């Protein structure tokens, strides 16, 4: 079993107006087999947490720690983190000109596993995973994310999740911009990865909609860069009914 542990994390970004703190002391522990949902209004720091775990250069960690089975994640480069078992499904996957999906997936798999996958089984695995996510076969020869619709990009993120088999998956608003059918397909993919075992999941979302398909054991509500409330799946139901208003009211009352 693995543990991803975030302790008292403070993160800031540089803006034109100066340095702006985003995360103000976040602590969170995720174990293999657990699914955690992070919810919260826009600008509360959810995506910053995701990007910081993955090591995006835009974010500066001012204090606190992130460890994976005791190893210092913050000391690792972006690719080292991925090879250590962290996977970030991005909110806005970028287009990579000149690199086909086939080439990209094989290169990534080789990098993560430390050896090239066996050609025959690999091709079969890719085809099967694509079919389950309703990705047309010709996408294999297209350049990474190039000309993909929003839904196609998200399905390709989950394709990578299924093929790369990380220890921890951080899904950054994977549900945003998806219609109901695409949401189901994507959720099924995530559930397959969870059921396959050996995965801890951090599901970041603005809406409760995806939680009808992916069931979290833990729900954390983010407000203004810190966790305002934590609970079980019932907390998501309450948010669905009440929205984030009561947190925002509380915040403005104390301000």
């Amino acid at each position: 079993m693995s543990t991803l542990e975030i302790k008292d994390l403070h993160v800031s970004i540089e803006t034109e107006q100066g340095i702006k703190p985003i995360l103000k002391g976040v602590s969170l522990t995720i174990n293999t087999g657990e699914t955690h949902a992070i919810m919260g209004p826009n600008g509360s720091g959810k995506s910053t947490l995701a990007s910081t775990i993955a090591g995006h250069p835009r974010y500066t960690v001012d204090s606190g720690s992130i460890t994976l089975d005791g190893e210092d994640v913050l000391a690792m480069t972006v690719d080292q983190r991925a090879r250590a078992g962290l996977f970030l499904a991005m909110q806005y996957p970028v287009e990579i000109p000149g690199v086909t999906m086939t080439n990209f997936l094989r290169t990534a798999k080789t990098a993560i596993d430390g050896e090239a996958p066996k050609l025959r089984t690999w091709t079969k695995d890719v085809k099967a995973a694509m079919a389950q996510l309703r990705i047309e076969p010709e996408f294999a020869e297209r350049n990474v994310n190039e000309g993909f619709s929003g839904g196609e990009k998200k399905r390709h993120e989950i394709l990578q999740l299924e093929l790369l088999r990380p220890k921890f998956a951080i899904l950054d608003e994977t549900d945003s911009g998806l219609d109901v059918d695409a949401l189901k397909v994507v959720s099924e993919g995530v559930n397959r990865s969870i059921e396959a075992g050996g995965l801890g999941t951090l599901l970041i979302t603005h809406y409760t909609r995806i939680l009808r398909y992916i069931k979290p054991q833990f729900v954390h509500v983010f407000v203004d860069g810190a966790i305002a409330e934590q609970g079980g799946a019932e907390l998501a139901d309450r948010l669905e009914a009440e929205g984030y208003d009561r947190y925002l009211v509380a915040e403005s009352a104390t301000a």
Partner: protein
Amino acid sequence: MTELTQEHATDSKVWSQDFIKGMTEEGESLSEINPESGPLGGSAAKAHSHGGDSHGGGVGVPDSSRAGRLTSYNLADFPAITGREEEWRFTPLKRLRGLDRVGIKGVKLNGPAPLVEVSAPDGVTVETVGREDARIGTAGIPEDRVAAAAWENFSEATIVTLPAEFAGNADNVTTLTLTGQGDAPAASHVVVIAKKFATGVVVLDHRGTAVLSENIEILVEDGANLTVVSIQDWNDDAVHASAQHLLVGRDAKIKHVVINLGGDLLRTTPAARYSGTGADVEMYGLYFADAGQHLEQRLFVDHSTKNCKSRVTYKGALQGDNAHAVWIGDVLIRKQAEGTDTYEMNRNLILTQGARADSVPNLEIETGMIEGAGHASATGRFDDEQLFYLQARGIEESVARRLVVRGFLNEVIQHIQVPALEERLRESVERELAATPQ
């Protein structure tokens, strides 16, 4: 059009086929009613005085139109180059090592020409001939002062002939290895002739150290199908101006490939002209500019006959301080060239800070009665977000960079369709990448 959406298009205008077809009637009626005031009036007017004469002089026609560009075999006809001319404005003249000033203040072009080594299959003839040989001048005429200087000063020419109906392919390539003989300014001349219905591949492989001005004439007779690959992989100090003149016959096909890799300053100016109808010109280019290198590619496709096709695809990668690439793509569709189908595309990938790519497509259309005409130009940066995405999938930075560039340039390499050559060029690209400054 997905070409453009993935990058920051710096200069792109594309006429879709539908647009041109829509323009057809309008263009026609305008030219009949009032040719001088129509949107194409200026260039249409030029076609009246110079149309049909593809080697016409430039009197009274603006420098900006390719229809009016001065052409001559005589150096004295060309004024001294100032650097302000449209065709010279991107070239750092100081680094031409005198190639631009031949005949001025005693500057000479009489260094030893490159040594030519030949590897040719049975049936293909390769000859060394004197200046008086009648085949010289059959496909080309200089269009700038540097090329005219080379034409006046070469002492011997190499002529490659694929005989009529010669059946060449990727396995019996003719290769001329041209090895520079040092840094004394030199002139050279090569003629490649594919006789009627000949097919085959000719590779011109430039290497070594040279300060060289060169004319290459490529004559593709009726029904022939010729591939010419010109590789410039010189030593770092080389300076090379190469005017490549293509003349393509009726129903003939030429695939022309320029590979610019090594040298301090390379200026390659391929110009394609048609002598018959129904011909097909494909021009590919690949360049990789490193720190301090100036790689300039200036294309011209002169559509003067009916129902001909042209496709231009040039792609370049740039890395390092003061790496500079220039691509100019001029396409002229003359009034009589009805049924023309042309598309040209240039894409640049900038890998590091400090590199610069200039890309200027120019399309002059003197008739609306065409199949299609378009161009696209885009310069993109391999940016931090792309790097982050690839690294977030476990791929190391150096591998990520290679993955992107290899894929980007492979689109050109795979069109060469000579496996041994493709392999060599992939290795060359890998070598260039290995030198990527981090």
